[in-house]
């Protein structure tokens, strides 16, 4: 398995649930299962909301997150703790597949999960942040769901190429090409943004 390369600005991968709690959850202990959900809910919501975007609404995010954990619950007894997959990756795999499936079923304009123009959002950059957000929304909105999912899994959830390949059931080469395409879109969006800023 390819280990993710540490990056200075990258978010740390969530610490894995400890073995004992996981084993207890697998045996059906309610408290351990609650701990597992609490431990991974943040990553699941983050992934789903980043892939689906804000336009879906929080209810859709919650439904998909719930469905994710329901599937985890059903399959958890068969999860091999000694196997090659981390629990977190396995859960994100299920979540990302559900999110992609949802996007394919109901295509919709992509908006960032959090509205940066929202008065409730911290105002530390105002207009510049909104411009940046619009550029990002445009770049991501132009990407098909599987591309966006690969990019989110890599850049925001720190999965390795191999883990993404496994999660999305695609060859590693395809993962790389999708990431490359997503980065090009972003770079292009940034250039346009900065070019517009200079000109204006």
């Amino acid at each position, binding site marked *: 398995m390819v280990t993710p*390369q540490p*990056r*200075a*600005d*990258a*978010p740390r991968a969530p610490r894995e649930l400890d073995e004992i709690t996981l084993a207890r959850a697998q045996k*059906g202990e*309610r408290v351990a*299962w*609650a701990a597992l*959900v609490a431990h991974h*809910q*943040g990553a*699941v*919501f*983050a*992934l789903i*909301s*980043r892939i689906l975007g804000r336009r879906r609404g*929080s209810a859709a995010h*919650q439904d998909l*997150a*719930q469905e994710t*954990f*329901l*599937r985890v*619950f*059903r*399959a958890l*007894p*068969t*999860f*091999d*703790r*000694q*196997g*090659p*997959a981390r629990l977190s990756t*396995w859960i994100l*795999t*299920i979540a990302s*597949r559900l999110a992609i499936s949802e996007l394919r079923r109901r295509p919709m304009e992509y908006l*960032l*999960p*959090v509205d940066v123009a929202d008065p409730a959002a911290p105002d530390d950059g105002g207009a510049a*942040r909104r411009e*940046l*957000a619009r550029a*990002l929304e445009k770049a991501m909105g132009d990407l098909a769901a599987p591309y966006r999912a690969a990019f989110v899994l890599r*850049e*925001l959830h720190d999965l390795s190429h191999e883990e993404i390949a*496994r*999660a999305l*059931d695609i060859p590693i080469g395809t993962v790389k090409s999708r*990431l490359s395409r997503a*980065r090009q879109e*972003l*770079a292009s969006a*940034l*250039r346009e943004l900065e070019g517009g800023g200079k000109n204006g």
Partner: protein
Amino acid sequence: MADRPTDDGLDPRYREVWRAAPPPSGFVDRVLAVTHAEGNVAARKRRSLLGRAAIALAVVAAAAVVLVGARPRAREGEHLATTARLSVSITERATAVLEPRAHLRWRSAGGRVTVEQDGGDVFYRVDRGVAFEVKTAAGSVLVKGTCFKVEVTAMSPTTHTLIGAVSGMAITALAVTVYEGMVEVQNEHGETRLGAGDRGVAEQGEAPRVARPLSAARPSNVPRLSDATLAALREDPRATIAALEQKVASLSSELTEARRQELEGPRDKDGIPKKKFHDFTPEELTILASRCEIRYDIPKFLSSGRIELRGLGDASNGISEAEVAQLNRHLRELAPPNLERLRALYRDGTGDHAGAATLAPKQMIRALFERYPQELDRAKQRLSLERAGLPPPPDPGGPSVVEQLLRLIFAAGDELERRGAQVLGAERTHELRRNGAGYEPGNIQSGCPTAPASTISGQ
């Protein structure tokens, strides 16, 4: 700023604006409630579904039936068949509620009412004292006397009824559930009496027998309509009746499912019916995936090589010769390319060109399974996980010849059903498939790969 983001990291400014929505408070509790309910339901469902549904169905259906005054009257001798729930009066003193796809006709002679129920589920309410008999292919149900009381305040006088449900299942089995009163189920092999709360089963070629009793359905336990329901009935009877009928439909569906489960026969150690090959629940699929087990049928043209359907166009299947002819036209289109694909797989997998031209399809399938046992294990694992909606393991080498073969079988089977549905409708076609018409059922492949990297948790 990084002008061109690289694999070394996303431009931090993007990360800053691409913040994620946090989980709402209480989400863990919500998940716990759902999974706890699912865990409980899975364990409890089989035990109690039949009883609960039967009780509720009895009460609600009784109320709805009594309340619906403008019920159409079925003419004597008229053949009734319906695609939606239908309530009809049979004489002045009996009512039948036909579920979708039920069909019957009735006649009256010498004060005796005889209903011939060819198939489907029908709920009967018969006033006390009426000589009433329901005949099915698997046996007859004779009303022996009853006393069932339905109370609906200010809406209807007290009525003494027999309430029971008769299901003619696939013509070969009859299931009778008695909610009140007593009936006798008989056929040429024997007879049995059923009282309130009993359930009987008669299969063609066997004497009727008492099945699992509906112990909770004893009169003392039958729930009454709640005060709120009664008040609502006084306020707005139509809306309440509609709601009750909706509830009846839902409960009836549950009851049908429970009956189906009961008739599915013995279960394995994980609770999956041993002879089940279709319509698995998500829980069952997950269990099957944990065993790397796939259950499937094979279209007969991919098994015996027989392309024409035979023996379907008789009365027991309810398929006309014209429909058989249409189905055969579809088969003649569908079979050749699939057979050719099977022969190509066999040639690729074995190099046996002569055999590919001469062997029967089932011989080629068996030969490929035997030649590639490890590939078969991996294919079973992959396909069972896919069916359960779980991530399959990585497959860098692409699908093996065995996996391609299984996918060919599955796809051909589904395509045959799809085309059949164009002729017969989806439900009829699916039921025929479940009964093995046009398919060779009963194929089970089970067992996981031995290599650690291919275990289920490795996705």
